């Protein structure tokens, strides 16, 4: 009888220990700092968040380092940008993680692009002749605050699914984040309104959602094709076109070489701006809202300098 009661006590202890463990913070790994920043907003102190790619790194070309396997091994949730942004490095990490929770299609895997508004979806035949094209559309969708809100909602739903007891907490934080983004968005839109329709050139196709939301018109790219470095002929053609259309701004992601953009700037008189497309791309862009604050201030300052947008 005593033996039975000790077994019962032991079981009860084990179960309560399990219950206590279940209330530990959810361990979230995001592939980029943008998703990590949004997850942090939604998850608050109920989660821990780490990101794999740094904000100043080209997210297409991250190395699948074994140290990332260790991060993924312990993750309760993996949040990916999707749309094949991480296709070159995430799949082997997931396979080697030995973590059934975060396998593609499992409960702890979230493709943040699922409900986002995606641009540049190719129509017709897609071939590599177009460069490193993304057949499912442009994966840089987080640079639209509306998509940021959608991603926050997706993360809140996923976290609630994993931890139903904290649903109200995640909902409240997601709503709060959405409200703050909406408020800030009004400010950003108002600030950018005088420059609506301003023609710009970007290095890679990282800014379609940003341009679309804030009224910039991207008329060309420093890369002749996605993933293909600039060629002399393309650069000459681009400069001619920029002069013809009076383009005064070239946006460059922090991980690209500035040699060609600077040459374009010198020839056309356009301002060359290093614009971080991700949280952590520069020190000041330390969270999702600050990323837009930083980028929009930078663009507006440059446009003012160029004397654009006085309509």
């Amino acid at each position, binding site marked *: 009888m005593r033996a039975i009661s000790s077994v019962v006590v032991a079981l009860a202890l084990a179960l309560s220990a399990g219950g206590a463990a279940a209330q530990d913070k959810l361990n979230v790994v995001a592939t980029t700092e943008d998703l990590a920043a949004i997850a942090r907003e939604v998850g608050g102190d109920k989660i821990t968040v780490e990101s794999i790619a740094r904000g100043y790194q080209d997210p297409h070309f991250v*190395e699948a380092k074994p140290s990332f396997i260790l991060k993924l091994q312990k993750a309760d949730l993996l949040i990916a940008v999707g749309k094949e942004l991480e296709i070159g490095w995430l799949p082997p990490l997931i396979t080697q993680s030995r973590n059934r929770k975060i396998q593609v299609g499992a409960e702890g895997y979230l493709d943040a692009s699922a409900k986002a508004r*995606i641009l540049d979806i190719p*129509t017709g035949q897609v071939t590599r002749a177009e460069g490193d094209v993304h*057949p499912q559309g442009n994966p840089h969708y987080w640079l639209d605050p509306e998509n940021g809100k959608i991603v926050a909602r997706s993360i809140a739903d996923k976290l609630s699914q994993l931890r139903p007891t904290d649903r109200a907490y995640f909902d409240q934080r997601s709503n709060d984040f959405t409200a703050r983004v909406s408020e800030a968005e009004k400010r950003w839109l108002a600030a950018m309104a005088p420059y609506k329709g301003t023609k710009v050139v970007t290095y890679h196709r990282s800014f379609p959602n940003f341009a679309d939301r804030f009224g910039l018109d991207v008329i060309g790219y420093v890369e002749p094709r996605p993933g293909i470095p600039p060629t002399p002929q393309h650069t000459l053609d681009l400069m001619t076109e920029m002069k013809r259309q009076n383009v005064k701004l070239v946006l460059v992601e922090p991980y690209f070489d500035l040699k060609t953009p600077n040459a374009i700037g010198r020839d056309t008189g356009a301002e060359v701006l290093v614009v971080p497309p991700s949280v952590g791309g520069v020190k000041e862009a330390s969270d999702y809202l600050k990323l837009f604050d930083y980028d929009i201030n930078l663009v507006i300052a440059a446009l003012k300098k160029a004397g654009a947008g006085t309509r």
Partner: protein
Amino acid sequence: MTGVRLVRAVAICALLLVAPSSAFAQGTDVQALRQEIEQLRKELQAIQQQYGERLTVLETKLGAAQGAAAAPVAAQSDPGPTAQVPPGSGGAGGPAGALPVYGAGAAASKIFNPDIAVIGNFLGASGRNTVNPPPTLKMQESELSLQAIVDPYARADFFISFGETGVDLEEGFITFPTLPGGLLVKVGKQRASFGKVNTFHSHQIPWTDRPLVTDNLVDGDEGITDAGFSVARLISNPWFFLEATGQVFRGDSGDVFHSSKRGDLSYVGRLRGYQDISESTNVDVGASFAHGHNDSGLLDGIDVDRFTTRLFGVDGTIRWKPLRRSIYRSFLGRTELVWSRREQPLSIENAFGYYFSGDYQLARRWFAGARYDRSGHADDAALRDTGQSALLTYWPSEFSQVRGQYRRTKYATGDLANEFLFQFQFSIGAHGAHQF
């Protein structure tokens, strides 16, 4: 209620279509008619709005039920009919998510096809080599890869190698990534986890050839590749990444291992450690062991004696890649040392070989490399070859590369070979990402 209003609206519409002439003919008040039409228009709008809202609610519910993944894509630019690729079957490199579905329902089955890619490896050689001359021009290999997720528990990878003389299954295995105990299990034909170069397919190595130590002690291009089981486990510790791998094979692997009976299995073990020194620099070290029977006891096809081969290997890799300029600059330094202990009818040969190599990325598309080789022969340790190589590689894109290699080899026989080797590699389709 709405239905009644709809009927009424349709009836009035019909009336309006047939009535005008008579209405005017009867001299009805035009103003009243206009009011009637206005009223009708409002009702129609109300119905339209009501039905629109209902439809939206239904679509939302339907979208939620079907899983939200495909919905937003379809909603935006209507690229035609689409179908959802099963989660993860994109594997690495292939399309996933909404794909266009062409034609009839039968075509939908195509979305279950694995990722398919072909990598061509064309080699050319010039210069002088009297000992082991590669052909002047050769389509060395065309590697067909077929990769997909099998089910919620496993994925499968096939690599079929088409050479100039035949077809070979280079690898074909199933991987179980979600087993209890943190085990990663592979079953099938696979490249053994002996060192680094042995695990690489031809298109992954940073040279046009394999190092002398691989050719002389680990069976060259083929390497230790065999049918068997592989179990890998991470060894938890607070300091660094540590992985132990144990493999059991049938025991047939080119010139290295030969199985004469069922019990002649070969065994491979590897311990790999990895540590980030900084965000740009990391160190990767490993120790490997392989054991199996060899073919030196074969006499007229009968294994009259029972001789074995043991291989010990140590490898080290240092990588540097500054994250802010990761697509423009990198360095990879690597060495592998292999000791071979081969029992033979008249001797036990203890051969040793190694290589050192370095590859520096000069620009986004340009890489320069060098390698130093030295290796004894597995069946005669006294014979030692040495070699030096210098390489230059150009990448037109991620999917093709052109490589030139100057190679100077001093063979144990005393012959000296000076060669210029060149290579074109090109990839089509969706080839999975490689392990680090």
